[in-house]
């Protein structure tokens, strides 16, 4: 029998049941949209990074950098005149805020135009410009033409450059422009000046940020290394870029993990829909088989239909994903900028590869999830032999076997996650296996739970309740699929909820421990971060100040992560939580004094510090590279390249910093903070760029940053809720519409419409309840995996999993509500049953 008439028939059948078909398409679309949106966000981060950072050092092979993130400018003279390295360029670069450009953060780039020919493409717009005095003394800067147009700025317009709260006034001398649109976007992230002006704005005296070099021989690199003094070093540009770029890779990987979840949801949805569609057509398939369609015909027909809708759904999904992706980019770029490295240019990048990935994912998912229903359809016996109870019996026999299979798969997943070499691919596969394995457990679990419910007396709540429960086990083959799907989706909800909840609690705890002071005093002038020692003394002696934690923070260069922050405490009031420590507290203090250091988890991960006796790490200092023994690793949520705590002596000796940059004040109990803050403000001059904030204010702002990071996951939760609802909608409708005959009987026997509706809604409620109950352990396991495996590998943080019972109730409520909602339509339809038709009387 040719396939085409079959396919045509099936398509027509689908068109008649438009809603169901639309749901199928929608399911595929949602899964694909999730994948595409996250992929767009990720590639956009990569592209934005290119435009913000990498492009600025595009052709250089090496850089000369210093520990304190600046080098003496004399080094450039030596490079040029003594070493004769012609392809070298001095660079001053720093992130600043420009108020006239919408308060954007841009890179202030000070360059020497004569050196630039080999390095950067900083095209000036020809024609209009005012270059007079650029080198001799003017404050002219160059910004991108597109920004100028956007904000209506012209040659001569003033701009205000903010570094912290330090403000400098400059004027626009010309525009950066390019015909190449990629270059044009890159230029948008810059404020370009002559190196002299940049040096003046940043008050760098006789320092510059770095020297870019193009070296084509190792001999030249060696020559330079020999020449450089202590505290200066030669790095390979690509390596540095990769190190900095790598800071956010893990974050992006975790995003992919979440997008995979969206795809899983889609797969379950499709499986549900197709499998129930097949069941609905059971009789039809039986007739077809009876009149001569082969198994292959049926299989092919079902698959073909699924694929047609898969393609349509994937296309819609890609379009939807592009839409969502654009929004996701904003959130992700903002998060990455806050947490890892500043992105001055945000570029939404939609590559053909992403689209291909999305389409492929959708089609593959549809194929995989349609495969088994198609197989079962192909196995339909010809109509004269149809007896539904037979296939149910067969399934019932399989149930224990499925359970054992499921256990094995779960065990395998656990093993996979525990492998020595963590790999994102393994993690995703393991995640999928967990879902799949759990799904196989559901038939047996459902049977058990129903039995428990019945024996617990549920049956005494009425005939309808008893019937509802019994109906579940009676059609286990279908109801278990439905409930497995609902369970998976609900567990995702639980998993994400527990993960974010635990995280938030940990952050709050951490903030309380580390930033526990009632009042914080620090400088907002990035060029003079030190607090005046007299001021510190005066504050210490204020009457209500019980104790004071004085410390300094200085960013220093790191080969492994671009930049790390060093802390040294005069008196450390913070409470640290350790993931590894070699010694108790008193010894730790002694170790610090001996020159040992503590590092944060992220630092340890980036610099490959392995916890064991004698763990060490080499840091670049003013005295050259120096190895430091690591005394312990503390849990930390500080972002970027990591933190290390050293003693004040070590900080002074190796990095030349002997100051205090921040104070935390602990007030006597019950002292209100505001009056003390006011007193301190009075001590300051009006121009002093010093910030006084209450501990609460700081905590809130830190929490706000972290809350942003979970916008994506919240979106995903919403997505799973939507998918949950639509997923089972179809399944529930199909399942319940099959009860038509039974409903006819009941109505004929004298059951009221209302009672019949009740029956269906009870059944739905139990679907939801049981799925929710089963979702609790799965969801808990999922959150454990998310926290301890995926999050830990992604961010390098560890934190405790906190289970709040409220989440479980929420989850059960969600699944029950979804199931009930799905049952409304069928219940209404059931109420309107035409009894004779239902009873097949005529």
């Amino acid at each position, binding site marked *: 029998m040719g396939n085409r008439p079959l396919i045509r028939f099936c398509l027509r059948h689908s068109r008649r049941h438009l809603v169901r078909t639309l749901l199928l398409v929608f399911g595929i679309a949602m899964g694909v949209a999730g994948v595409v949106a996250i992929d767009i966000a990720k590639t956009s981060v990569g592209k934005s990074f290119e435009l913000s950072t990498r492009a600025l050092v595009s052709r250089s092979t090496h850089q000369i950098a210093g520990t304190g993130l600046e080098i003496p400018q004399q080094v450039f003279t030596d490079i040029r005149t003594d070493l004769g390295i012609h392809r070298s360029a001095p660079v001053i670069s720093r992130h600043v805020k420009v108020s006239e450009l919408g308060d954007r953060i841009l890179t202030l780039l000070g360059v020497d135009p004569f050196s630039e020919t080999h390095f950067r493409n900083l095209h000036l717009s020809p024609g209009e410009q005012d270059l007079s005095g650029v080198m001799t003394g003017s404050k002219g800067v160059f910004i991108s033409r597109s920004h100028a147009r956007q904000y209506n700025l012209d040659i001569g317009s003033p701009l205000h450059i903010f570094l912290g709260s330090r403000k400098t006034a400059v004027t626009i001398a010309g525009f950066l422009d390019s015909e190449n649109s990629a270059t044009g976007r890159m230029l948008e992230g810059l404020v370009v000046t002559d190196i002299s002006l940049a040096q003046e704005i940043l008050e760098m005296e006789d320092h510059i940020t770095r020297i870019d070099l193009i070296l084509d021989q190792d001999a030249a690199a060696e020559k330079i290394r020999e020449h450089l003094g202590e505290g200066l070093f030669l790095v390979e540009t690509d390596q540095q870029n990769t190190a900095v770029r790598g800071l956010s890779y893990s974050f992006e990987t975790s995003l992919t993990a979440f997008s995979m979840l969206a795809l899983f949801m889609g797969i379950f949805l499709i499986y549900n829909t197709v499998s129930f569609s097949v069941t609905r057509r059971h009789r039809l398939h039986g007739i077809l088989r009876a009149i001569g369609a082969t198994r292959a015909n049926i299989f092919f027909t079902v698959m073909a239909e699924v694929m047609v809708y898969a393609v349509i759904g994937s296309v819609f999904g890609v379009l939807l994903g592009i839409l969502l992706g654009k929004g996701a980019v904003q959130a992700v770029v903002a998060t990455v900028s806050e947490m890892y490295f500043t992105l001055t240019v945000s570029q939404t990048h939609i590559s053909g590869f992403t689209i291909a990935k999305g389409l492929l994912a959708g089609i593959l998912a549809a194929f995989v999830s349609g495969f088994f229903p198609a197989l079962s359809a192909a196995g339909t016996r010809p109509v004269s032999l149809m007896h539904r109870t037979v296939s149910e019996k067969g399934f019932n026999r399989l149930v224990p076997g499925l359970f054992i299979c499921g256990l094995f798969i779960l065990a395998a997943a656990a093993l996979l996650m525990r492998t020595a070499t963590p790999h994102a691919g393994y993690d995703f596969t393991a995640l999928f296996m967990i879902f799949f394995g759990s799904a196989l457990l559901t038939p047996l679990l459902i049977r058990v739970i129903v039995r428990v419910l019945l024996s617990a007396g549920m049956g005494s709540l009425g*005939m309808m309740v008893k019937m509802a429960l019994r109906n579940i086990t009676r059609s286990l083959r279908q109801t278990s699929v439905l409930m497995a799907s609902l369970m998976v989706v609900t567990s995702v909800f639980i998993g994400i909820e527990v993960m974010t909840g635990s995280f938030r609690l940990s952050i709050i705890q951490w903030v309380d421990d580390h930033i526990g002071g009632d009042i914080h005093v620090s400088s907002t002038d990035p060029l003079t971060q030190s607090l005046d020692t007299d001021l510190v003394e005066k504050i210490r002696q204020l009457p209500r100040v019980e104790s004071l934690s004085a410390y300094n923070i200085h960013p220093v260069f790191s080969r492994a992560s671009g930049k790390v922050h060093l802390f040294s405490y005069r008196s450390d009031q913070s409470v640290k939580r350790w993931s590894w420590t070699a010694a108790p507290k008193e010894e730790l203090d002694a170790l610090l004094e001996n020159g040992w250091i503590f590092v944060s988890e992220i630092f340890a991960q980036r610099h490959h510090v392995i916890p064991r006796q004698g763990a060490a790490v080499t840091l670049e200092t003013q005295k050259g590279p120096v190895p430091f023994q690591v005394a312990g690793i503390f849990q930390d949520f500080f972002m970027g390249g990591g933190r290390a705590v050293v003693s004040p002596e070590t900080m002074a000796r190796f990095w030349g910093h002997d100051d205090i940059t921040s104070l935390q004040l602990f007030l006597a109990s019950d002292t209100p903070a505001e009056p003390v803050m006011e007193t301190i403000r009075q001590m300051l001059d009006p121009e002093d760029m010093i910030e006084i904030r209450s501990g609460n204010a700081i905590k809130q702002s830190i929490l706000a940053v972290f809350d942003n990071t979970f916008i994506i996951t919240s979106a995903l939760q919403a997505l799973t809720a939507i998918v949950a609802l639509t997923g089972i909608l179809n399944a529930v409708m199909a399942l319940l519409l099959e009860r038509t005959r039974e409903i006819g009987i009941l109505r004929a026997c004298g059951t*009221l419409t209302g009672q019949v509706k009740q029956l269906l809604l009870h059944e739905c409620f139990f679907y939801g309840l049981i799925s929710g109950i089963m979702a609790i352990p799965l969801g808990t396991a999922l959150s454990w995996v998310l926290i301890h495996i995926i999050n830990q590998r992604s961010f390098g943080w560890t934190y405790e999993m906190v289970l709040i019972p409220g989440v479980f109730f929420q989850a059960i409520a969600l699944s029950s509500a979804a199931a009930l909602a799905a049952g409304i339509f069928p219940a209404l339809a059931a109420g309107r049953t035409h009894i004779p038709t239902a009873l097949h009387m005529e």
Partner: protein
Amino acid sequence: MDIQISNIDKSFDDSGSRRVIFRRASALLPSGKISVIMGRSGVGKSSLLNLISGIDLPDKGFIQVGDHCISFMNDTARTIFRRRHIGFIYQFFNLIPVLTVLENVTLIAELDKVPQKTCRRQAQTLLEQAGLWDRRHDFPETLSGGEQQRVAIVRALVNEPDLVLADEPTGNLDQETGAKIMEMIATLARKKNKTLIMVTHSPDAAAWADQIFSVDSGILTPMDSDTNG
């Protein structure tokens, strides 16, 4: 109770075409008697039972069951009436698969909120009579066709309905079993003086009839069993 059928019209829309089942049909089905409805297949016999029981409504005319004008009652009223006064026996048994034999039998009473004890007592009596009391906790699928139909009969009668409707009650059974079933139905009906209206085309079943009606060309015509005898 008497069943009075007055001038009913009934037609079905069958995917585009209109099929007229009854046109100005009238009949009187006497109380306490066994009436058999006969006719060709598809002519509307089962529809008549649906109309009498209130499961369906005529397009025109009305049907009176005893003192109740069933055609003018709303759905709820009809359903409750059906519950309390009518017992239905089907060709395909139509037992609820997820309920045990006992539960199937007591279903209607439980719907009516009759106290458990009373339900059970009634059920027990009838089931014992049907010889199925030991199987009361079994599910229908474990019973043979004849046993299932017996349960169905018990279900129909357990509420002491005044009217029993049977649609091809032996249609799905072999001759021997069918005869036994028929005997059971008729005996129980006669014993309790219930009105039994039966649709069948089995002559053995029809032999039990007090009165025979035929459905043809949209009307109901009584056939004189005595004259045919």
